[in-house]
């Protein structure tokens, strides 16, 4: 038992590792604040584009969205980080991470927002036009607010996934929380930093998990 505590809950190691773990957590927050808006913006752009009828636009767009949903984010990240330099384009870790998340999470957000937009009855847009609202206001005042409200649980859930996904940035040596934890672990030969990092992730993300659970149950109950 004491060996277990020593290995996983070593107070001395935890105390020593706290400073760099804290720095890592700040980087994770920074990453999340970077990637979520980027993903949302890309997703919104793709979703709006996907409402157009032109086939020459729809098919390549749907193909792109499906492709970026099918490729695991880590593969895309490695491709952009380690592969692009061979083509002379060096994005560096932050650039590679930003582009990966924009493409991957943008594709997921695009699907969610598209489902939301399609769930708003066509009559809403028609009524808005009939009342003389300009196209852009039809979108921003009538359609999008209802669309977002309809898919709010999925949006929250996906945002939670994006924040958790920031941990893959550790693979390209971005000093976020998991990376710092592994560094501390290899230096101290003790697993405590990883446990502390896991606890930090849990404490930070658990409220959002509860929120998501609440929203999902509300939606399922409304369906029944």
């Amino acid at each position, binding site marked *: 038992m004491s060996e277990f505590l020593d*290995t996983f809950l070593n107070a001395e190691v935890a105390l020593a590792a706290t400073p760099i773990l804290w720095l890592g957590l700040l980087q994770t927050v920074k990453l999340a604040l970077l990637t979520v808006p980027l993903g949302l913006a890309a997703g919104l752009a793709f979703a709006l584009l996907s409402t157009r009828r032109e086939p020459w636009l729809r098919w390549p767009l749907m193909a792109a969205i499906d492709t970026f949903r*099918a490729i695991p984010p880590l593969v895309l990240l490695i491709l952009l980080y380690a592969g692009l330099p061979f083509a002379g384009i060096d994005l560096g870790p932050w650039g590679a991470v930003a582009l990966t998340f924009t493409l991957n999470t943008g594709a997921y957000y695009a699907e969610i927002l598209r489902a939301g937009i399609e769930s708003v009855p066509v009559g809403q847009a028609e009524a808005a036009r009939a009342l003389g609202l300009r196209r852009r206001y039809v979108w921003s005042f009538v359609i999008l607010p209802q669309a977002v409200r309809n898919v709010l649980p999925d949006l929250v859930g996906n945002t939670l996934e994006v924040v958790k996904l920031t941990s893959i940035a550790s*693979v390209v040596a971005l000093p976020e929380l*998991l990376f710092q934890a592994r560094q501390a672990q290899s230096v101290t030969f003790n697993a405590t930093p990883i446990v502390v990092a896991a606890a930090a992730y849990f404490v930070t993300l658990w409220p959002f998990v509860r929120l998501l659970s609440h929203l999902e149950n509300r939606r399922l109950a409304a369906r029944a």
Partner: protein
Amino acid sequence: MTGWDGFTFSFLNARVAAQYWPKIVEGLGVTVALAALIIVAGLAIGLALAVVRTLGVRPLNWLIVFAVDLFRALPPLVLIVLIYFGLPAAGIGFSGFWATWLALTCVLAAFAEEIFFGSIRAVPRGQWEAGRALGLRFHAVLTRIVLPQAIRIAVPPLTNRTIAITKGTALGSVVAVAEILGAAQSAMAFSGNPTPLMLGAVAYLVLFLPVVVAGRWVETRFAWRR
């Protein structure tokens, strides 16, 4: 070398591709095996936990809810790293493959439990009452009346979630599992050429594009009609 020639030499190198594609196919096999094991175990455990939760034993429910929240809040990579690098210090050694399997199974089980439990609760109360009125006992009402309906409600969110988690098998490359990404990275290191990575990306597309498209079909087919 012109720009295009340089590009094809780096990313579409036929010689390197011919040399290493068997390794990528092996990796594909590992990915499929890992994914299948994760799906079977994760969904079974998730369903079992959801059913246990419907029994209504308070302390048990708290335990389940806590575990589920834990595995939904932790990034899968953190779990994999914890199991692979951390547990050996406690005497339990998992290989990369099984560490990845265990981590992703726990994550899928947690999400599946939430989805199944939500679906069970979404089945109208009247179904339970009618079952009881007909003289069926609790377990019979559950298995013959409620679960078939609940599972149908659960299918769309479940397919999405399952696909997302099985893509997590790529994270196994971080702990030296020879799945597609791991094999591609080794080949890339040996050949000094990123073509294997392109092969790996193609392998993932070949594997998951049909799954994503099928998932979309399943969602429309199993739409819970009111």
